[in-house]
């Protein structure tokens, strides 16, 4: 049963994953990371263990079951009933994460720009637009990623380069003054984001040349790390100890820019970047949820359930937290653990099981 006819290339998968991880990471993580890592804030993104593991799991699963994603492989490994339960857990978690992202997006836009607009209008319009795009298929989302990556990179540089003269290199000293401990504990919150790399498992089946995905994922992981290191570094070198006092330190950085009294207050530019990124991110999560749910229910196509899933997504975004403070708290506590559990540990266990079953099967065959 083919639910999606689109074919995408390995670089497109890389770009989608990049945009599915980076935008919210730039925005939300520096403040949380700073509380643990202090001036070693910029080292934390380099400890991307869960990203490496998630990519490895996704690629191994695809090697064992070519052309199938995590949920489909789960049904093969665990059997029909357990597999369905496993799929439900993964899909509900994706729905939950999608809700968190939509909420983050909404809170950011309402808090920083459209102060008088109701949250539901902001997130509702985004979910609606995403639903329309998700209905168009994975190829279209990939094309958006294709186009937005250069825009994203250009706007990002446009924000960073004017700041270079204002950076104080001394603020990063002492480097690893207390060993690697602080930067490691600062990177714990980032693991939630890196574990989202598991999403690649849902995209590989659509790759026209699956063998190239490995290389493109390596590049993507590197690009994400470089982006986070540079954004954290700029934030740190500009704001120093103030970094931890803001919800969105990088937004403050954008506000700081003043070129010839003309290019001032570029935070709207930052919003543009961020909305574009969040758009692709929501689309990817939305797509995975809708497509996975359609597979899970054995539907012939996923398009009819896109709008219902979008409605759930919007509801979820309201349910995840009563306010921004709770959301930030959840991001630095429970979500890290749930993400690591559902996106890393459970799939790793699944992979281990598959591996054991395979070995066992071989041994049986030899006997």
């Amino acid at each position: 049963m083919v639910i999606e006819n689109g074919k995408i290339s390995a670089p497109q998968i890389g770009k989608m994953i990049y945009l599915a991880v980076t935008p919210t990471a730039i925005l939300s993580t520096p403040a949380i990371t700073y509380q643990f890592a202090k001036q070693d804030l910029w080292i934390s993104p380099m400890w991307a263990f869960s990203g490496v593991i998630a990519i490895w799991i996704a690629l191994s699963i695809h090697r064992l079951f070519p052309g199938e994603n995590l949920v489909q492989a789960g049904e093969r490994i665990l059997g029909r009933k357990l597999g369905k339960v496993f799929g439900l857990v993964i899909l509900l978690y994706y729905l939950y994460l999608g809700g968190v992202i939509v909420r983050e997006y909404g809170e950011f836009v309402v808090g920083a720009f459209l102060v008088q607009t109701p949250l539901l209008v902001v997130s509702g319009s985004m979910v609606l637009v995403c639903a329309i795009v998700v209905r168009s298929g994975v190829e279209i989302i990939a094309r958006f990623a294709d186009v937005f990556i250069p825009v994203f990179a250009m706007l990002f540089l446009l924000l960073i380069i004017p700041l270079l003269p204002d950076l104080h290199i001394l603020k990063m000293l002492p480097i690893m003054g207390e060993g690697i401990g602080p930067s490691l504990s600062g990177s714990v919150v980032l693991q939630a984001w890196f574990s989202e790399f598991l999403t690649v498992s849902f995209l590989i089946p659509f790759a026209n040349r699956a063998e190239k995905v490995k290389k493109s994922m390596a590049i993507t992981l590197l690009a994400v790390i470089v982006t986070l290191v540079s954004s954290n570094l700029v934030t740190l070198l500009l704001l120093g100890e103030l970094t931890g006092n803001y919800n969105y330190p990088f937004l403050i950085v954008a506000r700081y820019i003043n070129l010839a009294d003309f290019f001032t207050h570029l935070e709207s530019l930052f919003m543009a970047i961020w909305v574009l990124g969040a758009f692709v991110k929501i689309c990817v999560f939305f797509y995975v949820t809708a497509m996975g749910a359609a597979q899970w229910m054995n539907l012939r196509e996923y398009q009819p359930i896109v709008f219902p899933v979008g409605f759930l997504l919007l509801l979820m975004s309201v349910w995840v937290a009563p306010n921004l403070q709770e959301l930030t708290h959840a991001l630095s506590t429970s979500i890290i653990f749930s993400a690591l559990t559902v996106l890393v540990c459970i799939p790793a266990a699944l992979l281990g099981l598959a591996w054991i079953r395979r070995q066992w099967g071989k041994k049986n065959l030899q006997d």
Partner: protein
Amino acid sequence: MGKTNGFGSRGPRSNQREAERFAHQEENRQLDQALSANLAENVQALQRLYTRCSDVIFHEFCIGNRMEAVLVYIDGLAHIEEVDQHVLAPLQQDFPMDFTLADIRGKIAVSSIKPVDTIVKVLEEISGGNPVLLMEREPHGLAIGLPKWEKRAIDEPSAESVLRGPREGFIESLRTNTALLRRKIRTPHLKIVTMSMGKYTSTQIALAYLEGVAAPSLVEEMTSRLQRIEIDGILESVYIEELIEDNPFSPFPQLLSTERPDVASAYLLEGHVVVLIDGTPSVLIAPITFYSLLQSPEDYYERYVVGTAIRWLRYLFFLISLLGPSFYVAVITYHQEMIPNALLITMARSREQIPFPAIVEALLMESMFEALREAGARLPKQIGTAVSIVGALVIGQAAIAAGIVSAPMVMVVAITGVASFMAPRFTVGIAIRLLRFPVMVLAGFLGLLGLIMGGILILNHLFKLRSFGAPYMAPLAPMQWRSLNDVLWRAPRWLMTKRPHMTGAWNPRRQPHGQRPGPHKGESGD
């Protein structure tokens, strides 16, 4: 039998239709009939078809003073002088006693003579302007290729003028147009397949492509799409365009129409197919990408640096024409902090007196501008200037003085207007002008966010769009590096060694590498 119209009218009306249809079938049967050996019968059949057609002439005469014959032609479509001189004059001389059809053919000093043997073919030839000679005791007629009708001279197409480059344009005659193409591409690989379409107009349509360059699948697809068309008449290329495009609901054109033979030839050389239609100077090119709508032939005739710069200017102003007023509305309504302080004060002062919110102001002025543009375009030149003067006064001066709109808004509208005229193709310019309004409304509701949403929705449509199976936004999305050569910049001729991805995949090699010129080029040891 189809739907009923009105109460109780079903019976008689359907009977009448049945009768009509029967008569039609009868007529069709007659048309397919072969010519008989009896001249009078043939002439009668033709005269019955051509009743009340005063422009059809049946000229009776005797070949060699012996054999009865009739020359049928349409006055105004056939070249009468030539017919008199080269057909009638030699045929009316004395002939030897027993002459054959071959002898008659030999006597006619015309290069194109075709035998025709059915009524329908006779009709075709006559409508095409070729006089048909019918003879006693002959079940064949001779179609003599001497058509002549009034046509326009070849001149520069006013919608696509260039400073440098050929100044000829297609005209309304299909033959002339194919000749213009053939004169540029002088190879037997240039195939021009003609077909006739339209139940009443029998319009001639030619499909041109370069064999070995255009993908056979593309030619096949185009042929099958053309053959699917059933229509009563074709008066302009857009009739065909609307019946063969991929997405009939899109505001964007999925076929390129041009009046320039050099543009059509350039596309042929890249592996596209061209459809020429008799009776209109605009030809259709497929498949196309979005970017080809933003290219002008001038880009390729200027130096490539200049061509690239102009192309980027065009991209920039394309974005302005789509998003300009929305951006202004968004910034002035929601994001005032983006405006530098000094400018903000001036703007606030100019908006002080204005009773409307920026979005109302923008919608008002933009629709006013569109109205003026439309009025100016449809009026004769003398009145057109009056409209533009009044428009300039009303929009420019009076509206500001009366305190209805602010001066910056007038400026934004004017810039947007100019920007939308920068699109080299009118069709894409008008699509953009149309899409501007919904984006403006979105920006009025949600500021920059709404503008981004609008942009995403438009992009979503463009990404989905296909022109004859080729993605519309390629080579940018999906990314195809090789073809970006002709999108991000206008690469110099010696670097364009490969045809674009979309159509050139069949035969990618355009020219050999290493043709970059230089003072030492061609010397030994280079």
